[in-house]
């Protein structure tokens, strides 16, 4: 652009040769600190299908707080995606709920952090992995569902869709 910047660039490269040897190590460590924003790293971790030992939140008022997937019933080879049914064990539960800690329950995946391809070619992803507890026939145990729910459930789980407050 301007010749001042051109001249300064030459100066910088000359200085850079001196600098790299002395301050190179220092600068590298500084960059590492700046890059490892904790929340950022969490957000960008490798996402996978819902598979055995995946911990999921429970998005209804059945009484369970957290469950762990122990089996994928209807899903792909690698694991469950949005709308698939899993078997889970209750890891945390509210007292006096319908479901108790340690029970084996069925659930429908309603939110998944891994991106899921839609029929039109676009993709959707959520904040967290969440499940709605159902009985063997696929009817929800709870009476309320919190958070957004994808329209992928519309074929088999219309009941869940009708309970949800927002469909995306």
């Amino acid at each position, binding site marked *: 652009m301007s*010749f*001042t910047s051109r001249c300064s660039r030459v100066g910088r490269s000359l200085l850079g040769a001196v600098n790299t040897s002395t301050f190179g190590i220092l600068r590298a460590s500084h960059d590492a600190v700046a890059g490892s924003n904790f929340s*950022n790293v969490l957000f960008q971790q490798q996402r996978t299908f819902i598979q055995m030992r995946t911990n999921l939140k429970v998005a209804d008022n059945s009484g369970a707080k957290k469950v762990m997937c122990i089996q994928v019933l209807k899903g792909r080879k690698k694991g469950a995606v949005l709308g698939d049914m899993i078997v889970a064990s209750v890891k945390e539960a509210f007292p006096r709920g319908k479901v108790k800690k340690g029970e084996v329950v069925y659930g429908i995946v309603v939110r998944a952090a891994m991106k899921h391809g839609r029929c039109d*070619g*676009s993709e959707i*992803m*959520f904040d967290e992995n969440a499940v709605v507890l159902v009985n063997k026939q696929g009817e929800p145990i709870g009476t309320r569902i919190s*958070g*957004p729910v994808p329209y992928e459930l519309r074929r088999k789980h219309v009941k869940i869709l009708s309970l949800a*407050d927002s469909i995306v």
Partner: protein
Amino acid sequence: MRLEKCWFCSSTIYPGHGIQFVRNDSKIFRFCRSKCHKNYKMKRNPRKVKWTKAYRRLHGKDMTQDATFEFERKRNRPERYDRNVTENTLKAIKTITKVRADRSDAHHKKRMSGKKSIALKESLKELDQSIHLIRAPGAVELDPSKIAPKKIKVTIQQTQETAPMEE
């Protein structure tokens, strides 16, 4: 079918393109391409990133207020199909886009109107202030051959010759 706008760069997202991220409070963030999604993940503010529409609007680079933008608005009431209306709409789209392009061109022209003189002034100033970077201050005085010879104005006196006219 709805054409959405990208959350980051405000470009149009055609069906089957991009990715949407749904936050737990059901707010949907739509991104037209992975570039925008990555920038969002890096927690960048679209108002501070220069290539986005938000930045350009904020800094007066683009035309913001115009009647032609009213046509491209999100409407939640579905229109009943009417053949004549549709035909007229399709005709109108062409003229509207042309009008908008003309107006934005005029806006750009207006914005750039004083640019040439400013740039000239700045470069002259730079030349004046930092000539020493390319030529050492004493160099010109030492070597007289480097100095361009001064132009000497030569005045030519026109002598009017009074030649006798031929007959």
